[in-house]
């Protein structure tokens, strides 16, 4: 807009200079010519021809000069009219509205931009007072502007509103609407008035009349933009205010949160301290490793258990503490192994073997937990040194073995008369046979074949007596536990041979239902025989309570059960065990017998459990009792 104004000024100045220059120039030429004539002052006729010639020459020279001047003038004139045309064109086509007013404010001259701005043709504008087009509210300003323009030689500027013209309503989008819900009551959006900026400069025209040259710029857009800006500013302020209060609010809550965080941080520290103290005070070793088996952290107990210092362990492989069953202990293998092993064993307690710094092994109970930090997985192993417990278990086992031995002696005591009877039978037979032999030999013509037969029978009876004594001695003497693979059916036969004397006199019919081809068991023969004898003896004692004439049955059965364990059953048709007794018979020192210790079943159960089996029973009053016990088979042991 200012460029336009500058252009206007330049054109105007040029025009003024040209108007002043042209009359001056023509005056000068005339004066010069008159002067030249005056200077000569002489009559031509009086002049000599030389003078005349001189004069003529002079005239000719003037003439040429004049023609030259005329040509120059014509050229200047042409330039001027060209410049004028150009000016007119510039004037008319200028995007800035130009108005020329006389001193009464009547429009004298206008350009196309002005007609467009005012929405009237040139004809309608010229001759009309500019005040008619001006908004009533701006009339006062306008008149003082005109006055100022006429009196002051400098530029005057006026911002006014024109009366609205339908075609001049430059529609402006209020961008504020897009910002938010606009709540301003007097939004300028609908105001269609045209705002203009007028610059006025008074000058005299060639008729010496005072004129005002006005350049009018449409500043509606600027004005509206300004108003929109104002509106937006207000909205912005409102928004800022709102946001400020929100910020204050969130600041408050942040402060609160900071306080809370401080508190929880404090709590965390406290907890960490507590955990740390637990971590290091724990008697269980706590070892954290990564998935590759590298030790990340250990607690103080680990030092105690393994004898290493913490520094010696951090970063080392877990293999250092707990040798893994790997042939090739490369990192890769270790990682694969851990990946397979760990998830299976999380939450379980496994017995593993650890290696101390001094190379000695230490039995451990190991439980594993898994956790992840930042997508990295770690495993925490909690290890407990169970060497003391193992030792205790060993002691308990020895204690059990001793107790078993003592009760075995007791059992034999109870069975002594039966066993004596069992030994007496062959001895009696032997005495009889030998006496018979003597008698035959002393007689006439002893029958050698008969003697042979008798002596053979004597020999057999001797062996039989020897076997019983042998078994008895094994049973009573054996204190040292010696496990071997054994056939359960053989053990049952051996046990029966020690209680044989009890069956016939007590009118008990023994039935054996032993499964063939059973897998071997890995047991201490004497202890298992003790269990069998105990159960047989209990059944015999129960059967003795039946009326004399009732047929008493005792069955011993073996079979392989679904778990691949051998199940041994000792079943009688005795009076059964009432429910009150069932609760107690497996407790120590409980007995229903006048001569019983109440340890038989307790020991039997302990012995079976020491062999990884179970002992239980099933009894219905009036319907007999069945005792069961199981033994793992050799197959299972091999699998382990």
């Amino acid at each position, binding site marked *: 807009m200012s460029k336009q104004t500058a252009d206007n000024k330049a054109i105007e100045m040029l025009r003024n200079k040209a108007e002043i220059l042209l009359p001056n120039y023509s005056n000068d030429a005339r004066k010069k010519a008159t002067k030249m004539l005056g200077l000569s002052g002489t009559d031509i006729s009086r002049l000599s021809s030389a003078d005349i010639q001189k004069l003529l020459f002079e005239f000719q020279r003037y003439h040429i000069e004049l023609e030259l001047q005329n040509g120059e003038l014509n050229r200047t004139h042409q330039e001027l009219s060209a410049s004028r045309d150009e000016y007119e064109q510039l004037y008319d086509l200028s995007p800035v509205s130009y108005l020329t007013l006389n001193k009464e404010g009547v429009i004298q001259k206008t350009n196309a931009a002005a007609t467009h701005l005012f929405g009237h043709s040139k004809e309608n504008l010229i001759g009309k007072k500019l005040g008619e087009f001006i908004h009533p509210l701006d009339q006062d300003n306008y008149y003082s502007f005109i006055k100022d323009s006429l009196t002051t030689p400098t530029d005057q500027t006026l911002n006014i509103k024109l009366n609205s013209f339908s075609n001049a309503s430059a529609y402006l989008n209020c961008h504020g609407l897009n910002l938010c819900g606009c709540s301003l009551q007097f939004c300028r959006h609908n105001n269609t008035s045209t705002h203009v900026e007028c610059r006025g400069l008074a000058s005299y025209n060639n008729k010496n009349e005072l004129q005002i040259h006005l350049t009018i710029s449409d500043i509606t857009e600027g004005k509206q933009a300004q108003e929109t800006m104002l509106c937006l500013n207000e909205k912005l302020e409102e928004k800022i205010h709102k946001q400020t209060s929100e910020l204050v609010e969130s600041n408050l809550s942040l402060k609160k949160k900071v306080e809370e965080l401080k508190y929880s941080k404090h709590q965390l520290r406290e907890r960490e301290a507590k955990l740390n103290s637990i971590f290091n005070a724990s008697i269980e070793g706590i070892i954290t490793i990564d998935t590759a088996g590298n030790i990340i952290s250990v607690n103080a107990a680990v030092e105690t258990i393994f004898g290493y210092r913490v520094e010696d362990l951090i970063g080392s492989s877990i293999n250092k503490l707990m040798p893994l069953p790997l042939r090739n202990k490369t990192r890769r293998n270790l990682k694969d192994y851990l990946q397979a092993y760990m998830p299976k064993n999380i939450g379980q307690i496994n017995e593993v073997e650890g290696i101390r710094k001094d190379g000695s092994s230490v039995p451990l109970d190991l439980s594993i937990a898994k956790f992840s930090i930042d997508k990295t997985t770690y495993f925490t192993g909690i290890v407990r040194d169970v060497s003391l417990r193992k030792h205790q278990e060993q002691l308990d086992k020895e204690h059990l073995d001793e107790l078993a031995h003592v009760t075995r002696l007791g059992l034999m005591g109870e069975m002594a008369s039966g066993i*004596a009877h069992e030994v007496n039978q062959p001895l*009696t*037979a032997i005495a*009889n*046979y030998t006496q*018979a032999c003597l008698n035959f030999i002393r007689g006439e013509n002893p029958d050698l074949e008969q003697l042979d037969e008798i002596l053979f*029978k004597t020999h057999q009876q001797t062996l039989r007596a020897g076997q019983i004594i042998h078994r008895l001695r094994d049973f009573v003497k054996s204190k040292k536990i010696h496990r071997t693979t054994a056939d359960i059916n053989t053990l049952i036969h051996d046990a029966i041979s020690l209680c044989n*004397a009890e069956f*016939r006199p007590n009118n*008990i019919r023994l039935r054996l239902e032993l499964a063939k081809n059973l897998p071997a068991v890995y047991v201490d023969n004497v202890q298992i025989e003790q269990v069998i004898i105990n159960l047989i003896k209990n059944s015999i004692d129960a059967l003795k309570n039946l009326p004399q004439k009732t047929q008493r049955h005792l069955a011993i059965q073996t079979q392989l059960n679904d778990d691949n364990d051998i199940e041994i059953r000792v079943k009688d048709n005795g009076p059964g065990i009432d429910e009150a007794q069932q609760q107690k018979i497996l407790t120590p020192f409980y007995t229903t017998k006048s001569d019983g210790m109440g340890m038989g079943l307790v020991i039997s159960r302990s012995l079976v459990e020491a062999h990884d089996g179970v002992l239980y029973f099933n009894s219905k009053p009036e319907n007999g009792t069945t005792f069961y016990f199981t033994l793992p088979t050799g197959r299972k042991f091999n699998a382990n």
Partner: protein
Amino acid sequence: MQINTPPSTLVYLIDDEFAVRDSLTFLIESTGQAVRSFESANDFLNDYSHEQPSCLILDVRMPSMSGLELQEELSNREISIPIIFISGHADISDSAKAFRAGAIDFLEKPFDNEILLKRIEEAIQKDIETKEHLIKKRQIQQRLDHLTAREKEVLSLIVSSYSNKEAAMKLNISNRTIDVHRAHIMEKMRAENLAELMMMVMPFEIVPHGVEVSD
């Protein structure tokens, strides 16, 4: 060592244990004595005959029926065979029971064969005597059976130490009638004198019928 027992005597042997049975059979047979052996008491009861003088070697402990039970059963059946008990172990109450019920002996296995053989001899001798006694007793019984009711009444009073006079009063008959009955009794019973008569009827425990025996 030969025992001069008539071959018609028999030793019964019951033991559930084959070796004992077999060896004892050999032993006893080696003395020339016949043996019949049984595995159980019932087998024996089914086979036993009282014709021959015999004895019984009996094991105490046996299934189904024990030696002592058999002894009781024999007593119930009034079979008086002398019993020598043999036992695998000495049980005082068992042996006391056996002796009370009239056992010859109670031998603990293994036993001295000579003692056993000696006991067998004694037992058979005892059985012979018993059997003779029994025959005698049966004869007396037969004689008693021949007495009339009145004669039995008189007999019971006489053996109860009543005098003729007392008996006559008791039965409310004359002395002379008593004398006649008494002579008939002595004749029927083939008794030489009162003492012999009393010996004869003593085992029969003749109790006066319908009379109060009192002073």
